């Protein structure tokens, strides 16, 4: 009990400290922080499903895209409202639409296991991406622009920095609470041996669907923030295979074994990309690729796993 309290207090202190950073940092570094929080948020959302159940989705960008376009279309409808209201409407639209879509496909798709689930999620992302650009209602091929909802007087990057940080905190809190709940233990049982879990009375289908819908919905909410921050979205920018891959890579680099893994991975990968490789744009991809290979071979349980191992 005391330990739980300690973790909560430490986490709150850390987030509070992070929240003060924009007061001191230059715009460029604030934007780096913002990117880290967004990619960490996405990675945690992906990890909500994969880390608990070992269902590796290859198409989570579907939910980013759905959230982004839902937010953009909603904001268009409520253009006259106050910015705060617009923000709430956009976030809610992203969350709900992505969750509804996740719920709609959950039952058929979660029957598939292993590589088949992985590929099916890729297919979902591809179909949705193509649909958004094929039908003019979505404006996917031409793109949609979003209004600037940052309060006047506040620096835009700082506003999104705080917004992304807050969402990351929420997503992490949800994941943390789940990991200590009956749902979390059931999901872990599914990861170890789904058939055995089912025989032991874990309602495997229901638990998987809950994890999937939560994961998809939260990804959609973050997708709305992602879109608002971009200001202008196209199919290619939000239904992007590399977004799905980044979630996987960040989680594996950081380590699948704990909630901190995806966050650490996102911090390392995004940090390296934005800070170290900023001057090496031409070889950016190759260095990222080498980094991935190196991490998989040297630290198979991710950086978090490596740290645990050296401490033992």
């Amino acid at each position, binding site marked *: 009990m005391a330990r739980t309290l300690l973790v909560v207090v430490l986490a709150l202190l850390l987030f509070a400290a992070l929240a003060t950073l924009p007061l001191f940092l230059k715009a460029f570094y604030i934007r780096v922080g913002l990117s880290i929080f967004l990619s960490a948020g996405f990675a945690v959302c992906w990890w909500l499903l994969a880390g608990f159940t070992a269902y590796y989705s290859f198409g989570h960008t579907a939910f980013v895209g759905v959230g982004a376009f839902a937010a953009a279309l909603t904001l268009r409808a409520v253009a006259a409202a106050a910015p705060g209201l617009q923000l709430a409407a956009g976030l809610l639209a992203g969350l709900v639409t992505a969750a509804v879509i996740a719920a709609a496909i959950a039952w058929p798709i979660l029957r598939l296991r292993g590589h088949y689930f992985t590929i099916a999620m890729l297919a979902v992302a591809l179909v949705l991406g*193509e649909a958004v650009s094929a039908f003019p209602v979505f404006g996917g091929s031409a793109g949609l622009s979003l209004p600037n909802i940052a309060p006047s007087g506040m620096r835009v990057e700082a506003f999104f920095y705080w917004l992304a940080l807050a969402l990351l905190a929420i997503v992490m809190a949800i994941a943390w609470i789940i990991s200590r709940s009956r749902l979390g233990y059931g999901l872990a049982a599914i990861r170890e041996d789904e058939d055995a879990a089912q025989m032991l009375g874990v309602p495997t289908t229901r638990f998987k669907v809950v994890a999937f819908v939560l994961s998809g919905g939260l990804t959609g909410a973050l997708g709305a923030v992602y879109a608002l921050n971009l200001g202008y979205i196209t199919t290619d920018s939000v239904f992007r295979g590399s977004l799905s891959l980044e979630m996987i890579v960040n989680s*594996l680099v950081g380590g699948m074994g704990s909630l901190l893994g995806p966050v650490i991975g996102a911090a390392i990968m995004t940090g390296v990309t934005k800070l170290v490789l900023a001057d090496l744009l031409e070889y950016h*991809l190759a260095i990222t*690729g080498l980094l*991935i*290979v190196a991490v*998989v071979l040297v630290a198979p349980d991710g950086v978090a796993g490596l740290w645990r191992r050296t401490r033992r």
Partner: protein
Amino acid sequence: MITLLQTLVNGVLYGGILSIAAVGFSLIFGVMNVINLAHGIFVIGGAYGALVAWSTLGIDPLASIPPLMLIAFILGWLCQRLVIQPAVQRGNPVAALLVTFGFTLVALNLLTVAFSSSVRSISPSYSFINLRLGDVSFDLVRLVAFACGLLLIGGLGSFLRFSRWGRIIRATALSELGARLCGVDARAVYALTFAVGSAFAAASGVLIGMMLPFTPAEEVTWTVYAFIVVTLGGVGSLGGAMLGGVLLGLVSALTQTYLGGVFTNMVMFLILLGTLLLRPNGILGSAFKASR
């Protein structure tokens, strides 16, 4: 009526190319249970190899297939031994997939630096010849590529069916432990499988390069198409890859003619999703691997 016939012909010819472009992926998936994200880069690498041979040395793309297959074989062997096998031994199924992705990024970067990201094409002297049979026209290049594809698939099939190493590969796919207890060095088999898969990817890339314009970033497309073909036809089966390829080619051609080009990819991906949900083991199931 003529449109339909022409569309079907185009579909089958394109399907043949899709088949040959997927067999390497299918072999690696079926034998090693590794989703090889580097597949597309070997395909596109083959196209660039043929481009270099044609534009600098004046070698006909078809003649460049054997040496390019050899180069891809060696590269694939090294890639498997140095990077993928160590990842496979980590025991995490996604580890292998991730290193193939890492390898792809490196290769993609090098290709882009070497050739820029602009669109290239190979057009040997016979590229613009059109044959007519009644009212249906055939691109000579597509016909040649189709025939070459069939020849290559036939060659791979005979290798797997009749040769000693082919038998060893099939046995290892069916039961790794069973094969090891016979004295098979499973790591050598996996290296060979990956090398053969890479060689066939490169060969298909040459054929693709003769028919279609290409850029380094196209690699994603060919990995995804291989995915779809293999899912449709069934993992690890050459017959499945051929059936899946032709079906996909027909779907693509029919959608393009009757619904419009914007819908071709969407319909293809929908078919992938539908197959997965209804028949996850593909239409033919698996020829030498029990369903997982």
